[in-house]
């Protein structure tokens, strides 16, 4: 009985990975083939990538997405880190409220964030849709994710280390620079990377903000309406590759011990 349950669990885990990764690996495979529909036997070609590079708006869209992702990452990581320190460092009765408000965006559908920001920006604030409003709208839910990540890591941080530094002569700024930051920056970096990727690849929120300005997801959306275009094979593969490269780098840093995640010895 015990063996059967364990075996079933292993099969389910492998099944989950297959389910999650088969589409990704298959589209990466197809992206290097001449024939999109039945690419067997393999016939290697780079023409999908050539047509992606030749696509009008591709460079602009890439640039815009990097801007949205980067600015969102900075905003979210900053808000999230400050709030997480505030919640964990000082154990006041406000911390549950503060944490609840920061996590609330996790429980709001993206389409609602998208349309509410669209209407509010235009009708109340009088802001036109542009990259700035896209950053703002993406930073709402990204802050929640970033907060969750920083909070989970910082929960293990021993704040008495800061007190020790103070007693031994470090000013508040010195304490943050010498002790707090060197110990918590991996979680801040992790939060920033996740925020970047979510905003970079977001469509449901960004779509309602950017108007005619192209981003990679809106470009992909436009293409996908007419079936999977040649460029889309290349784009999907490139983005998947970039995401995994970034996560693998972060994981490698964590494992190599360059970034220490254990604070208590």
């Amino acid at each position, binding site marked *: 009985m015990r063996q059967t349950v364990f075996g079933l669990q292993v099969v389910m885990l492998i099944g989950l990975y297959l389910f999650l990764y088969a589409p990704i690996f298959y589209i990466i495979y197809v992206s290097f083939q001449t024939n999109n529909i039945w690419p067997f036997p393999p016939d290697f070609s780079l023409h999908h990538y050539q047509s992606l590079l030749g696509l009008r708006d591709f460079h602009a869209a890439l640039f815009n997405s990097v801007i949205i992702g980067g600015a969102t990452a900075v905003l979210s990581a900053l808000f999230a880190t400050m709030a997480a320190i505030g919640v964990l460092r000082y154990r006041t009765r406000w911390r549950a409220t503060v944490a609840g408000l920061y996590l609330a965006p996790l429980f709001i559908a993206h389409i609602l964030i998208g349309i509410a920001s669209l209407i509010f920006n235009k009708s109340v604030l009088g802001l036109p849709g542009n990259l700035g409003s896209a950053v703002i709208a993406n930073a709402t839910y990204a802050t929640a994710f970033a907060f969750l990540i920083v909070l989970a890591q910082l929960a293990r941080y*021993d704040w008495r280390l800061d007190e020790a530094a103070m007693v031994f002569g470090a000013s508040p700024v010195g304490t943050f620079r010498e002790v707090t930051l060197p110990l918590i920056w991996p979680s801040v970096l992790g939060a920033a990377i996740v925020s970047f990727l979510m905003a970079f690849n977001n469509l449901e929120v960004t779509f309602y903000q950017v108007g005619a300005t192209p981003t990679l997801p809106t470009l992909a959306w436009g293409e996908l309406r007419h079936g999977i275009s040649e460029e889309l094979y290349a784009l999907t593969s490139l983005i998947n590759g970039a995401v995994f490269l970034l996560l693998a780098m972060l994981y490698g840093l964590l494992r190599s011990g360059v970034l220490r995640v254990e604070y208590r010895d």
Partner: protein
Amino acid sequence: MVALRLERVTKRFGRVTAVEGVDLEIGDEFFALLGPSGSGKTTVLRMIAGLEAPNQGRVLIDGADVTPLAPYRRRIGMVFQDFLLFPHRTVAENILFPLRMQGVGAAEQRQHLDWITQLVRLIGVEDRYPHQLSGGQKQRVALARGLVSRPKLLLLDEPLANLDRELRREMEIEIRRFQLALGIPFIYVTHNQEEALTMSDRMAVMRAGRVEQIGDKLDVYHHPKTRFVAAFVGANNSVAGTVTALADRLATIDWHGHAVQARAHAGLAVGAQAVCYVKSEKIAVEAVADTDTRTQTQTQTDTGRAAAAAITGTLRDSIFKGHYADYLIDIGEGREITVSGPPRSDLFSHDRPVVLSWAAADADAFPADPEPAASREA
């Protein structure tokens, strides 16, 4: 010379008063702050360090008022519970942290490092990280970091709480040695009376935010001034009864027909309820023949003094601890008394009738009501 002075220091957290009106004067000595958890002793230490600001009162170091100063301007050393070494810094970097914060030059840092690693016997591990050290080594690094800048005083917050018993014994002696070598005040917070009694010159016993008694450690041990100190310090037994006579600073208490004598403390009155405390090593125990069991006897103690009290009981168990033994004696009425003494072959058979006695000067009687008895330390 007074190195540290606390004047009427009070600290409140919301509605809870953690420390109330504490006065302390500490010279170049080893001073222990002893108390159960929640007694406010750690809060007192944190106010000296500047990690908490008192609501009222002043903290003076070498005569200068440091109450408004942030911790990093006070130039004191501290050894924390759990060591709190910086995990991302090597042993040497940890030790030199206070000097680096003070902007001391590299050459001088090197000198201090050599000096302190020799003092605390910590050579050859300078380049290791904290997680590569044993518990004892971590303790030494924490001490070195606390002492390296030759601070005006060293605060120690239960530094031995997480060490095993053997290591604790060793470090108790070491820390005492450092204090004698450096001649600066060590202020040592602990809930472990054995540590306080072993290491300190003077000690203060705290309860519920107040200092109950302060003085030479032997004085605190042998002459408790309050009921709490009598119950908390040392291994104690208590019997409660009605005061039948008060004379010559001695009280006589009736305990179920036995007349028990003890030093009288303030607040006692004839006819009122009293509790009498006596430390387990100050009780003499003698085996008697079965026929004597229920007769009250006037025996002679080993020292020849007239015993102030004699109670009969039954030996329930003897707990052999090597160089001494604990005897658990049932004296009836649901009371059990523990007596400590040298192991004796005649007291190792169970259910023997025995007679207990102690000198009046070794027992302390307090009024029964105003203060609840403290739970004894294990």
